[in-house]
């Protein structure tokens, strides 16, 4: 029974990715690029150069963090649609800390401080939705969603106002973005030649592993699952629903916030409008694709990250709008959602 279900789930995930990729090829053809050109451009953008690979790995790290957080909250029966806003909160906090640290701060101090600020800010941002859920019964889906818009606007505000985080305005040419973070707040590179890959991917792998172990192999993880599956029974068995929900959703937000911190502390190491690049949404896709398995989560994050890098190259080289990748992502979710009932082994609707 269980093995049939996991087989079906893997089949669905694989099939959805395949169908969506084929649809992407068709769209590219519509835009005037033949399959050979498209695949070539995609492949080169994805893994053609050490630079491309490094970029993709950095992106994958962020997606893994957002996705792992989503999975954790989902285990407790919560749907965190607020990845985008939490990335923003994390990015803002990291920038605030990273630009105010003394210029001579060593990386051993600067990086942890910056990332801790991002982690905390993301958690607090999500805690708003969590507290409203527990106190007022407001659906966390609606609040996390609305908070995305607020978070994005907050970034705009931060980088436009000189009194906030905007870099010193010297001329009318000064871009609306923050000053660069001090060197000590930059994420160290992995050290692979000509690759921009940072330690972000290692951090993300560790975080994902920890979340995986905690949610499957500890009493706390089981209690979280019980709460998600059956709130009333969990309460009867001593799980305190309110505090547990707040912790779960805040932790999800904190991991997304950490992702935001990683984004701004990677070159060019500054905060600008649109710095989240829709990774909040892509992270949600990763979480949904994974269905609770951390291994699948890592694979899905890598896939989407490489696709994203490939998509950018696709626009540059073949003139296919990079939104094609967004179309592929959303098609994947729709296909998985459509087959969820079947994958769960339930009776099909007549």
């Amino acid at each position, binding site marked *: 029974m269980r093995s049939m279900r996991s087989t079906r789930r893997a089949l669905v995930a694989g099939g959805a990715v395949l169908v969506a990729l084929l649809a992407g090829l068709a769209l590219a053809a519509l835009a005037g690029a033949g399959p050979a050109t498209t695949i070539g451009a995609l492949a080169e953008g994805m893994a053609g150069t050490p630079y491309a690979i490094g970029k993709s790995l950095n992106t994958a790290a962020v997606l893994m963090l957002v996705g792992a957080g989503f999975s954790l909250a989902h285990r407790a029966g919560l749907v965190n649609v607020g990845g985008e806003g939490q990335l923003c909160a994390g990015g803002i906090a990291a920038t605030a800390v990273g630009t105010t640290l003394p210029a001579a701060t060593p990386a051993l101090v600067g990086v942890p401080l910056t990332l801790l600020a991002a982690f905390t800010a993301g958690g607090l941002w999500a805690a708003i939705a969590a507290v409203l859920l527990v106190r*007022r019964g407001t659906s966390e889906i609606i*609040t996390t969603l609305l908070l995305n818009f607020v978070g994005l606007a907050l970034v705009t505000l931060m980088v436009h106002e000189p009194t906030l985080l905007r870099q010193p305005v010297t001329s009318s040419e000064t871009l609306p973005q923050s000053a660069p973070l001090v060197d000590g707040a930059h994420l160290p590179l992995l050290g692979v030649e000509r690759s921009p890959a940072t330690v972000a991917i290692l951090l993300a792998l560790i975080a994902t592993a920890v979340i995986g172990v905690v949610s499957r192999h500890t009493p706390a993880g089981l209690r979280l699952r019980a709460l998600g599956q059956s709130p009333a029974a969990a309460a009867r068995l001593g799980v305190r629903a309110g505090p547990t929900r707040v912790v779960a959703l805040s932790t999800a937000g904190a991991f997304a916030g950490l992702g935001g911190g990683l984004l701004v502390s990677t070159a060019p190491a500054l905060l600008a409008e649109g710095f989240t690049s829709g990774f909040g949404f892509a992270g949600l896709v990763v979480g949904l694709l994974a269905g609770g398995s951390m291994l699948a989560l890592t694979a899905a994050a890598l896939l989407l990250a490489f696709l994203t890098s490939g998509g950018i190259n696709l626009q540059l080289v073949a003139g296919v709008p990079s939104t094609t990748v967004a179309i592929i992502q*959303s098609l994947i979710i729709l296909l998985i959602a459509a087959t969820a*009932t079947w994958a769960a082994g339930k009776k099909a609707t007549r």
Partner: protein
Amino acid sequence: MMLTQILVSGLGLALPLLIAAVGELVSERAGVLNLSLEAMMLTGAFTAVTGTVLTGSAWLGAACGLCGGLLVGLAQTLLSVRLRADQIVVGVAANALALAATTFGARLLLDGDRGVTGFERLPIPVLADVPVIGPVLFAQTALGYLCAGVVLVTGLLLGPRTGWGLRIDATGEDAGAADWTGLPVRRIRALCILLTSALAGLGGAQLALSEVHAFSDNMTAGIGYLAVVAVIAGRWRTPGTVVAAVAFGVAQALQYALPAAGVGLPPAVLTMIPYLVAIVAVSGLAGASRAPSCLTVPFARA
């Protein structure tokens, strides 16, 4: 004068939001949450502009807008009613898909030619000259009047005191009981979603053809979400939903009206306002009422 200005542009933005919200209210009463409302509106706006450009007729364009919304509605129906997919997940994904697909489509079909004449304002003689109320209510475009009429008719025909309204409410309150009573639960839900999507598509067309007179990427920018929130803030009742929708519309209009009036708030703060208002509205008011019991719960017999 300033107040009139805010109200005029406020109602201008409120009308698309209002027609979508009134449609969404019907769906939610039947037990289906369409977060994809944003997708329906954006697709509606895109197909309306494209249709107008291709046919040269604003009315045919508006019809295309309605059909664009319906297209998303069909997908939502297939997924959430027929295949019992998670309504929230489908909604979020449909919005992302619509955003990407319309952006893609606009590059392909509309490049360089995104503006349309659309609909002209048609002030109703005498009424439009009444101070404040006149320009606010009686100087809409033909499509605007149509939208207002549709809102009114929907409210009257599907209100909780009609046979149709009663059966819709039963479907959303207790789908199992409705089924045992012999009501075609899935068909009722499908029709409600299709109605919602047609109205939302029309709302998108109204936004594009009567207000903005163009299509721009992500031009709905969250209006669809606000329409969903308006239903919650309006406690699943028509009058409340209308009030909330208009309030959100006015909050949106402040973005343009306040700078014009010389109020020196940063634009980003103004962008936030409608969403902050929405968060306060759902958390402050929703607690006092109850959503339809079967909202977001797919129906399957036995």
